[in-house]
């Protein structure tokens, strides 16, 4: 099990309150694979410093979790398939 931190930028035109529940359904991938989700932190709407897919605003969310590498790779893949996900980043905070 490894500690991961995943940052997701979602389309800014989405409803902010629907973000947490919809991300949570994605996190079931981690839970069924035996991982644990420590924290789901939705930063809220934020201006992007440059446009991504012609969009000037995004909703940021940061997820803290412990899981196997394969489960995280699968979660990242599924997130990228979603059109309203502008960008994702998976980081292992301990590796520096």
């Amino acid at each position, binding site marked *: 099990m490894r500690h991961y931190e995943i*940052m997701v*930028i979602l389309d800014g035109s989405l409803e902010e309150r629907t973000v947490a529940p919809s991300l949570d359904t994605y996190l079931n991938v981690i839970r069924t694979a035996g991982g644990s989700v420590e924290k789901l932190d939705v930063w809220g709407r934020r201006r992007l410093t*440059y446009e*991504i897919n012609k969009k000037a605003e995004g909703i*940021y969310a940061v997820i803290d979790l412990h899981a196997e590498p394969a489960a995280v790779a699968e979660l990242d893949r599924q997130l990228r398939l979603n059109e309203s996900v502008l*960008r994702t980043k998976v*980081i292992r905070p301990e590796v*520096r």
Partner: protein
Amino acid sequence: MAKAAVLRKPKKKVNPLDKESITYIDYKDTALLRKFISDRGKIRARRVTGVSARQQRQIAKAVKNAREMALLAYTTTAR
């Protein structure tokens, strides 16, 4: 004169990270990272920032990660 320039001792810089006892440089902490980039968004050199080589690498990594996530700018159009 050239000789005077050689003899001049450079001013010792205080390490800004050690002073605030920051051990982990987080790419999400844009307020901190902004101290290490110029007003045009370029990463400042180590001789300017005064941090250790290791910390400078960590800062560079963090800035680049922050740029990817649109937290910091790659370029500034101003000027």
